[in-house]
């Protein structure tokens, strides 16, 4: 397969003795949107965190942009600049203003000039409709606004690849749409490669090219999205879809 950006082979993960991921194999092509679906506790979040080096894994390999990752802290620190990650709880830095949150990575990690970083940060804020909040502190913002800024903060580093870990799970229902629209726009306009963990089935259906369905730490099926939502290959996935009631 040409143009694969990420390849995961035989990944195994344990928490002490507890086996949480079993022989995970999949790859993601450039521009592809993959959603990870599965019941709570199936290992979706653990898997996506392994892809960013936030969780160590015990066996297997991750290959990112044709380079097999040597999982040292130093290496991951380099790779993380190319992988943007957004979390469920937004986690903006409360001690910094919105614009400083966004500029921290570009100026300190990538050593861009403050002027260039600021100009780009403003542009990104305009894109998500929050340019008026550049000098506000995170505590003055709503959950949906914080999450949009967390996405901007990740984008400011020009990642090749984005990971979204249940980014709407702690938002009020009316805030969810705004955040999802940004992710959708990234997929459509920027052709961004991404892995999205979500419980929003409608959204998954709209955005995904392919679905990985996980249960108990195993990938039960990998199916093109249309096919998955019409008729999944496994009964377990069908049960899961029925229970989601969307």
């Amino acid at each position: 397969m040409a143009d694969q950006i990420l390849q995961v082979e035989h990944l195994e993960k344990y928490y002490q003795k507890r086996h949480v991921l079993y022989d995970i194999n999949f790859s993601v092509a450039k521009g592809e949107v993959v959603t990870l679906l599965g019941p709570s506790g199936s290992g979706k979040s653990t898997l996506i965190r392994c892809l960013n080096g936030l969780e160590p894994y015990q066996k297997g390999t991750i290959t990112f942009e044709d380079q097999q990752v040597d999982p040292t802290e130093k290496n991951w620190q380099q790779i993380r600049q190319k992988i943007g990650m957004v979390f469920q709880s937004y986690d903006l830095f409360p001690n910094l203003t919105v614009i400083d949150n966004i500029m921290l990575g570009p100026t300190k990690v990538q050593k861009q000039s403050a002027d260039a970083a600021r100009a780009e940060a403003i542009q990104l804020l305009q894109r998500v409709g929050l340019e008026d909040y550049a000098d506000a502190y995170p505590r003055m913002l709503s959950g949906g606004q914080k999450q949009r800024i967390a996405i901007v903060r990740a984008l400011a580093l020009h990642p090749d690849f984005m990971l979204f870990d249940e980014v709407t799970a702690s938002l009020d229902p009316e805030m969810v749409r705004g955040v999802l629209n940004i992710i959708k726009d990234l997929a459509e306009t920027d052709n961004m490669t991404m892995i999205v963990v979500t419980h929003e089935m409608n959204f998954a259906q709209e955005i995904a090219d392919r679905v990985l369905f996980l249960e108990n730490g195993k990938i039960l099926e990998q199916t093109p999205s249309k096919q998955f939502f019409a008729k999944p290959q496994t009964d377990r996935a069908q049960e899961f879809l029925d229970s989601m009631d969307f």
Partner: protein
Amino acid sequence: MDHSGISVLFEGTNFTRLLGGLWVTVKIAGVALILGLILGIVLGVLRTFKNRLLRLILRLYLEFFRIVPTVVLLFLFYYILPKQLNFNLPADQIATLVFALWVGAEMSDIVRGALISVPKHQRESGLAIGLNRYQLYRYVLIPQAITLEIPATINLATRVIKTTSLLMLISVMDVINIGQQIIEANNHTHPTGVFWVYGLIFLFYFLIDYPLSWWAKRLEKRRLERTNG
């Protein structure tokens, strides 16, 4: 009112001598606090690292300075170390050193406590934007820890200032020692002088420490208001 005793404060140069003693006290406490704060931040950060041996050593350091009474520490550094190690410093510098090491120990615990109470997600989202360990501490963890630790730090400062009253035991010319000299020298002419001299010293300490503790309380109240609202 000739012999009310208050006049002892203003005989000759008594009052300026007391102020001079107060200055010695404040200088020792101030320098010790500044050096101790720097040391404490460094040690506190090191104590959040994973290296077990390092953590054990720093823990022992903390416990030593916390458990051994300050008087004993002062004597140890003033009488014993110079003999054993041939390490001679004037009394006020010994005092500054002991206090700085003590503040460093206490401060390392305050800093460590504040650092580990910064939510884990903050560390992760810092890592996710590619910060290295130094940058993570410098821009994300330490600034958030500081707001948590300021009230405890100010309280530590008031304790340090109070404890300088032990310095007379190693013959530092601090405000208490000078007060004692004035009392003894004027005992015949001003029998109640002791009351006035110590009264004034009490006032000095109060004027320095009370604003600090008021400030700590206010900062803590503001922080709580901010986090809850």
